[in-house]
């Protein structure tokens, strides 16, 4: 039964389509040159592109649709800001922490929350998990509104921050390149997951949990790992967003529409491809801006029609349209 010559072994373990990522990075690098004056639009679009990519590690790869990522975004934002504010930082830390330490601690807290939240709720199938994410995020929102150490419903103001590697954190150009690095980080991690044991285990779990368990894969553990990575990156995005806004409150940062926006960007962009979420975020930001100026009052109406159209006619999202053979990432069956 031995074949005469060993056939060429096409590699499965590739980093996935790297060319699209490079093109995306090129576009993001060129933006400041063309639209140097429109940095607000640039920074917020990149931050949300990174958030959509982070969301997709759980939503696309593990097939667990979360509508509670605003809470993880909030943990990143609140932790960094509280630890950087002299009056709010806990006494035992002896003085405000630099934003990068604050961000790291925020990421750790988000990881801890994802660990507990995930291991409790991943026993639940599909829509039950989504509903639990809505509830957990709303409880976190209520805590933020009603407690003083989070600034209550008045929220927080960003104190003066030390320079990061010589960059003034409040300069839009610096913020742009930080957000740019954030998107690249999420791209690199997604490519790495694509090539790793975790990536294949997640795809196996998403396709057929029992089939995966027969191959030695613990579905809940894999989903929790995906959730932790997703949470850590989302918290990092939250810290960046806090620096960009410089003032935020529960009613703007922790609401359900923010979680829905992050999820929609990834789904409309295409959960199947590695770069889909980032592309979706950028396109939706562009359409949002065009609709805002062109259609004024009706812009949210057009946004709704766009979402419905994509669901009906582009099941794999916008990127799915281009890569006809694109891998179909449905939710966990």
């Amino acid at each position: 039964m031995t074949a005469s010559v060993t056939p060429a072994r096409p590699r499965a373990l590739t980093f996935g389509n790297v060319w699209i990522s490079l093109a995306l990075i090129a576009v993001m690098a060129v933006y400041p040159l063309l639209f140097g004056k429109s940095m607000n639009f640039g920074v917020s679009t990149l931050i949300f592109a990174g958030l959509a990519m982070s969301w997709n590690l759980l939503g696309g790869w593990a097939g667990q649709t979360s509508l509670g990522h605003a809470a993880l975004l909030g943990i990143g934002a609140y932790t960094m800001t509280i630890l950087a504010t002299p009056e709010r930082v806990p006494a035992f830390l002896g003085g405000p922490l630099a934003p990068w330490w604050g961000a790291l601690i925020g990421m750790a807290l988000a990881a801890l929350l994802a660990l507990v939240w995930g291991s409790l709720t991943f026993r639940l199938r599909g829509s039950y998990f989504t509903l639990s994410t809505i509830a957990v995020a709303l409880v976190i929102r209520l805590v933020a509104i009603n407690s003083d150490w989070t600034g209550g419903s008045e929220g927080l103001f960003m104190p003066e921050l030390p320079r990061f590697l010589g960059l003034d954190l409040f300069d839009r150009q610096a913020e742009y390149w930080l957000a740019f690095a954030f998107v690249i980080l999420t791209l690199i991690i997604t490519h790495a997951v694509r090539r790793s044991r975790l990536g294949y285990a997640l795809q196996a779990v998403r396709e057929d949990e029992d089939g995966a368990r027969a191959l030695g894969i613990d579905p809940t553990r894999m989903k929790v790992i995906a959730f932790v990575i997703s949470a850590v990156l989302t918290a990092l995005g939250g810290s960046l967003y806090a620096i960009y806004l410089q003032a935020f409150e529960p009613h703007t940062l922790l609401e359900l529409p923010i979680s829905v926006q992050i999820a929609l960007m990834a789904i409309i962009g295409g959960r199947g491809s590695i770069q889909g979420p980032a592309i979706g975020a950028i396109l939706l930001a562009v359409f949002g801006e065009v609709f805002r100026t062109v259609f004024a009052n009706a812009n949210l109406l057009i946004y709704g029609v766009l979402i419905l159209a994509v669901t009906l006619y582009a099941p794999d999202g916008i990127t799915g349209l281009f890569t006809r053979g694109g891998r179909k990432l449905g939710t966990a069956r």
Partner: protein
Amino acid sequence: MTRTVSRSLLSLAAALSLASSASAQGTLKIGAVTSLSGRFATFGQMQQAGFRVAIEELNAKGGVNGQKLELLLEDDASDTNKALTAAEKLVNQKVPVVIGAYASGITKPLSQYMSRAKVPLIVATAVDETITKPGNAYTFRVNNQSSVYTRSLIDQLRKLAGLKTAVVLTSNDAFGKSVMTDVTKLLPAAGYTLLGKDTYDQGLTDFRPILNRYKAQNPDVVIFASYEQDAVALTKQVKEVGLNPRVMAGIATGFALPDFLKGSADAGENFLVTMVWNQDVRYPGAQNLYTRLKKALGGEEPSQHAAQSYAAMLAAADAVRRAGSADPEKVRAALTTTNLSTAFGPVTFRTYGGYQNQNSVVGLITQVQKGKFVTVFPASASRGKIILRR
């Protein structure tokens, strides 16, 4: 699919790119950001009416420095990110000053951005204390901070004899929180004991349990500060559960809306409502402004937000006139020395009591008498006397 994507990228480029600079084209452009769609659309449209009436009035008198005024109004769709993008677009169009936004949650990040962009921002409606306390050099506020409402109410309550107990229910947003902090701090000093204090979350519509508790406590005074859309439901349920204190008070937002009178009908009778402007207030030109605002709203009753936005536009134009140029830095300097009297009342930006560039607005107290808001306090602006409910 790719064709439509590239076409919309082009129209984005047009939208984001530099329109000609503000002053070159013969009209003086004033920027404004408000919520014409989304959750706060009601108030965005009120602001739009106020801006338009002011622009018409100013252009009728020959505009500013020989140039007609043009309003560049951007809709932020009640979304923080869109507000920041809109403001940046206005800054790129070299507007000398920007007015907006409606809600405090959007205005705070906006004021931080505008101070970084070194272009003055005039706030017309957002009441959050922190906007001008500490605030920054580039943020000016025409409308009052939320504590003005509460302090003027408590000053009035202090004068009413024989009232000893009170309860307070507020929304759990920043506005509600600041009312709650002021009430719990100042009411005891005014000789009242606070029997109960509650906050409620957005979307709640059933207040009966709390009102039942208040009814059992039988307070002399009941104070409410609500989300915009809850004022009527709250008032109706007060009548329904039979809560009948000697004084009922509603603080601004939902209660100060003209719809409150229509919506609550006789349930709202002799409610005290705090606001900063009312059509019957004895400020020069107030009635005339009311009719013009009503016309601009197509017959809808204008709220105080329309009058506030009107005054903000006048202050912006006045500053540009005195600065003699559209340079944001000069306009900012001119704003600090503003001393204007308008149909909304006097406008001066002073730094006092921890606030910076804050217009000190007189808090009015009106009472719903026979289905109309009648100004009862302060005496200088009042048209009628307070009637106690029992």
